[in-house]
């Protein structure tokens, strides 16, 4: 236990203390200057009556759900596909992983210029091929932009989750498939009865990362749409940034920060608990 001292100290200093400070901050009004003023529950009451916050919560929930629903099947499919040891699959795997190597800002700027309705590549493509559905106001149409953002975030993160699934699949003992084959299982049955149960911890890990990650997602949205058009892509983390650093309302921003942290931690703990991940019991052959 002696060795836990310094890490615990750092953990408290940089995680626990600031978190407590944020909770305290959520009960004051402060614009960054002078002394904070005690506000009681005013900031918290504001959260429940603030239409922008309500919109942000809705947008965030949509982003989390859509991101999970879009990213999981694609990552799983690609992961299982690239887990094979054939050489051409290695080539594919390398190509799939490329977006992972790009910086988020680079991805955002790249897509922003591709989707530009006047000078963008998609518009040019639509003009030269006559495919008029490509000529959309991708980042300015309130009915479209959130889905575009979901797609780009998926494009950014699917490679990482693909990698997780591919690694997970490669660790499933070959003997299980041989046994299933002897029992006359079809490939479909092998997927449902062997692969997926064996991958359950990978699914949970990837799910936690996806859900908590998209819950606090910020960068691409900030660079590409800055929450717009209107409030249609203003996720909670962006709202918090705006309230804190553009509106100088640090007390109310702390309310949003506390809510984001608590919800994020609660979801992570919940997923770990209900999935049996916490017990970490290995179901693999040979493990105790």
């Amino acid at each position: 236990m002696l060795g836990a001292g310094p890490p615990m100290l750092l953990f408290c200093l940089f995680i626990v203390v600031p978190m407590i400070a944020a909770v305290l901050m959520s009960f004051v009004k402060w614009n960054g200057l002078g002394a904070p003023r005690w506000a009681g529950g005013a900031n918290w009451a504001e959260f429940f009556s603030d239409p922008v916050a309500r919109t942000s919560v809705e947008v965030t929930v949509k982003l989390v759900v859509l991101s999970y629903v879009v990213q999981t099947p694609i990552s799983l499919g690609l992961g299982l596909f690239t887990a094979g040891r054939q050489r051409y699959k290695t080539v594919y795997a390398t190509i799939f992983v490329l977006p992972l190597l790009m910086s988020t800002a680079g991805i955002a700027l790249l897509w922003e210029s591709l989707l530009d309705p006047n000078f963008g590549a998609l518009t040019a493509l639509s003009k030269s091929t006559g495919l008029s559905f490509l000529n959309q106001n991708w980042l300015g149409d309130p009915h479209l932009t959130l889905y575009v953002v979901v797609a780009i975030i998926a494009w950014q993160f699917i490679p990482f989750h693909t990698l997780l699934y591919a690694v997970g699949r490669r660790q499933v003992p070959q003997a299980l498939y041989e046994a299933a084959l002897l029992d006359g299982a079809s490939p479909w049955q092998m997927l449902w009865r062997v692969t997926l149960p064996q991958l359950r911890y990978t699914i949970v890990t990837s799910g936690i990362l996806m859900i908590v990650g998209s819950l606090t997602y910020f960068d691409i949205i900030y660079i590409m749409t800055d929450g717009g058009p209107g409030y249609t892509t203003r996720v909670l983390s962006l709202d918090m940034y705006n309230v804190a650093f553009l509106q100088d309302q640090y007390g109310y921003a702390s309310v949003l920060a506390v809510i984001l942290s608590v919800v994020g931690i609660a979801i992570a703990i919940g997923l770990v608990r209900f999935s049996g991940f916490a017990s970490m019991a290995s179901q693999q052959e040979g493990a105790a």
Partner: protein
Amino acid sequence: MHRVSAPRIRGRRWLAAGAAVATAVVLAACGSAAGGGKTSASGGGAKGKTVTMWLVTTGPSPANTAVENLVKSFEKSHPGDHIDYNFVENQSYKQKIQLAMGAGNAPTIFWTWGGGTLQQYIKAGDVASLGHPSWMSDFLPSSLGAVTDQGKLYGIPVEGTQPVYFFYNKQIFSKYHLTFPKTWNELLSTVKTLKSHGVTPISLAEGDQWPGLMYLEYLTDRIGGPSVAQALQSNKKGAWSNPAVTKALSDIQQLVRAGAFQSGYDSLKFSGGGSDALVYSGKAAMQLMGDWDISSILGSDPSFVKGGNLGMAPFPTVAGGTGNPADLAGNTASYVSISSKATATQKKIAEEFFADALTSPSYAKSEVGAGEVPVTKGASPMFAGQSLASYDKTIYNSVEHAPSFQYSWDQAMTPQVANVMLTNLAQVFELSETPAKFESLLNNQAASGS
């Protein structure tokens, strides 16, 4: 770059959510410390006869050199005094100075855009009043409003003025035998004509939100005169319901409905250069923008500007409006102020720097040389021989003779109101919010957010 190209883009880009949470949390920690005890009065840790100065920059520019030379000559003529200056990148400056102010650690001399943010610092007792210095009369009167609070002066112009005009493609206008519209109705018929020829009438970078604000500023002034904006900026109760604001907002939506703006105007950003490109490539006929647009277009397409194709015109008048057609809107200037936490010696040196150096005609001249339009009186002859002299001279004369020069609202108002105003105005431009809803939201924000 010739001028500060994007002075109003607030906030630091490329911040991850995690970092934002962490910063908010760290700020929280700083705040409780700053709220508790008294902090050192040395201002940036400087001692004795050294003063610190923070200035904003968008990168290496001749304007920076002008300031550097000014400091050198000041130190020469004031032996023993030392000014320790630092240029801070434009985007991150607002947070840096806000943190330093909150921690009681501001430099002796700090850069400011004046207006609502400076007013917050003044209210918190962080800014030293300059009283009524004799050099006030050296500057154009319209340039000092942004650093004046309750009759007292708190800053001095350090860099040039940036009023807003329509910039247009002269080739397009001559091709269709058009002259630049002088009234709002003429503008609407020009829009119609251009559309019938397949040209986008107006380029708008509303993805940045502040370009749309320029329309509201000018329309409000043309319709109701400068007193309307003054009432808004002082957070008068119900000021946003002024009929001039209502008319301005519905005029904006009339322009949108007329199809004046390019497709995707609500996501295009000025910083990407796309809205300029539409104008100089001949896809769009005009753009309402701050005067930095001249250097911005010059940077992207020098032959377009040098060939005399870039036209510049004042905002049209509105029938029945009471505002003076010569009124301007935009950034009156950039300023420096003195921190109240500085020592008496430091304040004295800073005041001498203001009175002896920043007001000197030779500094105004080097500003002109750096491509700025200074707000010093009598600068008109200084533009002779400059590469953009014709534009600069027109700008200077219009500022000199403007009955009112209203300061950009997003700078003039408190940050609490400005941010909400920008986001909701973008929705007015998208026709997804009615003028009435905009007004009631802003009235509420002004009542609660100040």
